């Protein structure tokens, strides 16, 4: 159990380091864990993935604002750290 928690914490730290390191996260391939590491709540991350599955790939970073549960504050927090470019 402890090992599992430790593993999750390390994973989140690694993902966060990747984001802080300047590499932008692609909204069209991001996992729930990566989105959470970026600063979204778990339910927001799930909504982002649900939006992608239902409406197709994100065409612009700003499309995040059309995702349910996404508010301007959360969007501003991550907008410079995500991309939709392949």
């Amino acid at each position, binding site marked *: 159990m402890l090992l599992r928690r430790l593993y999750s914490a390390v994973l989140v730290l690694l993902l966060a380091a990747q984001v802080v390191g300047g590499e932008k996260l692609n909204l069209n391939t991001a996992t729930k864990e990566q989105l959470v590491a970026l600063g979204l709540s778990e339910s927001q991350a799930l909504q982002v993935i649900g939006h992608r599955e239902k409406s197709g790939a994100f065409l612009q970073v700003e499309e995040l*604002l059309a995702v349910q549960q996404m508010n301007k504050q959360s969007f501003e927090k991550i907008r410079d750290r995500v991309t939709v470019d*392949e």
Partner: protein
Amino acid sequence: MKLLLTALLVLSFVVGNAGADERARLDNVKTEWQNAYGAIIYTVLAEVKNVSAAPIRYVKVKVELVDKDGKTVAERVGYNAGAEVLEVVVEGAAKDPAENLKQVKPIAPGATDLVRISFDKADIGKPFRKANVSVVEVR
């Protein structure tokens, strides 16, 4: 040489804009993504101002969605709100264009009207960086 290049650049800008109609000006251009009960819509909103001394019947505006390489991925043309009847898709629009023109509310000198042009996400298809908005016709 540098001066010549600058002069050419300035000249090309002036010539490039000479064709644009100066009777109407676009202000406060905003874009937004909306989720309308599951339909994902991208909308461009702007104010169009009549900067001439005479009334304007309508202003036709073009929106081009441009990708990171400068390529147009989608484009659409629309009218100011008072002339939306000129759009084919408007319900109640007459078949005769002249008849539709009678229903248009002109923009008085110095007055503004709204422009709203929307895209269904499915009609865009590809990622894009920005929306270029321009006046293509003033009457």
